[in-house]
């Protein structure tokens, strides 16, 4: 166990504050979670912003399946839902939210997907865990926990919305625990 429920909660609270600080308030902010677990995290961050600032920040989801660079390496899987807030993203500051930052390829795909949806003023990245091993020049703006890991290890994120409990675990070898979205390269 790397993070328990309280750790996760504290990390999200901190990230929420960082986002507000960096943006100087909640104006023009749009949170887009990357399915599956990024969506839940984005909603939690929005809740915390609402508590702090009293402002409802628009939350949506941005599926990157159709933009992945490794589509051909796996059997085709269906895209998950992309939901852009009704106000759109043009001129906004979009914060992409995901559970684990690993190779950076997901973020690369997300930036492509975002470009097809509009032209935000700025795009930032918030992740619960950064486990290193970047393959692309990508850096997170807001990180819940830096988690140095070996490539052979598996980082498993569970959230109550999708998995019934909040925790982050690290497993020594493949096959231990179930396949998680957080494992996505």
């Amino acid at each position, binding site marked *: 166990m790397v993070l328990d429920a309280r750790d996760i909660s504290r990390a999200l609270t901190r990230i929420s504050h960082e986002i507000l600080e960096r943006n100087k308030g909640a104006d023009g902010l749009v949170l887009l979670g990357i399915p599956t677990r990024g969506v839940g995290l984005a909603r939690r961050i929005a809740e915390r912003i609402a508590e702090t600032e009293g402002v409802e920040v628009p939350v949506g989801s941005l*599926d990157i*399946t*159709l*933009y992945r660079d490794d*589509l*051909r*390496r*796996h*059997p*085709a*899987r*269906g*895209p*998950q*839902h*992309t939901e852009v807030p009704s106000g759109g993203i043009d001129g906004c500051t979009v914060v992409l939210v995901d559970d684990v930052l690993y190779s950076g390829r997901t973020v690369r795909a997300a930036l*492509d997907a975002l470009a*097809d*949806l*509009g032209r935000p003023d700025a795009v930032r990245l918030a992740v619960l865990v950064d486990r290193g091993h970047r393959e692309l020049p990508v850096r997170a703006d807001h990180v819940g926990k830096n988690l140095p890991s070996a490539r052979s290890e598996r980082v498993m994120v569970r959230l109550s919305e999708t998995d019934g409990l909040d925790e982050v675990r690290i497993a020594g070898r493949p096959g231990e625990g179930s396949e998680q979205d957080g494992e996505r390269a």
Partner: protein
Amino acid sequence: MRKHLLSVDDLSLDDVNTLFTTAAEMHDVQRREVKKLPALRGRTVINLFFEDSTRTRSSFELAGKWLSADTINLTGKGSSASKGESLRDTVLTVASMGVDALVIRHSASGACHQVAEWVDCAVVNAGDGTHEHPTQALLDAYTLVRRLGTLEGKHVVLVGDLTHSRVFRSNVGLLGRLGARVTVVAPPTLMPSGAEAWAAASGFALSYDLDEVLPKADAVMMLRVQRERMSGGFFPTAREYTVGYGLTRDRLATLGEEVPICHPGPMNRGLEIAADAADAAQSLILEQVSSGVAVRMSVLYHLLAGEGASA
């Protein structure tokens, strides 16, 4: 999903649900300013149409292009037999160009099954003779599910030239799989041979009496009737057909206002469907067309995006 889509029988219920879920996402993309997705970049799709069909061909072409596949249309009128080239020669020639999928429309039933035996790439049946038109059935069902919420337990009525309809053959299989109760209506001369045994085995109902069936319908699908059928003695006159089997203004009035009306097109207005019915608020005919692109995007995506889907 199997490698090819030749018949609705190639699809499990799970496959259909997956295709519909993806189609819904594709449908959203259609409303965007930028309609292009990179999912099939580098893939090549050839629409090989041995029979004219502007709408199906355009629909597949847009579907391929919006997924960033290189999409080419090839049309060959008449059977290749008349040109001295076998169908096998023709498709192998095309497939040898390095193609990931062949979308095939042919005037002979079973043509796509034959082609799938010969080529390595994926084959999508875009209508083979009077056999099947699986993507049409998928888009019909998809459109109805969006309107009705579900097809489970819904009574869907198909009316028209069943003998010569590939749309009927694909729909009757797919609608049944999705839990719909299906009744097909036609004059006896336009019922397929052996329809009684088929209906009994597959659990759909037959009727010669549209007025008896229509008030119990949850959805109505009108099928095209070719005027040329009259010369085959299938019915005496267009007028008589319309009186017996057309969705006329009078019959429209007996339908519930919420009962959707579908037609795969092209319509013979005034023959099998009155203008009032085609243009009614409950008509899904244009929605079928827009759903068609989304459903075909979904089909191409699932056949071509993943591993092992390369020529």
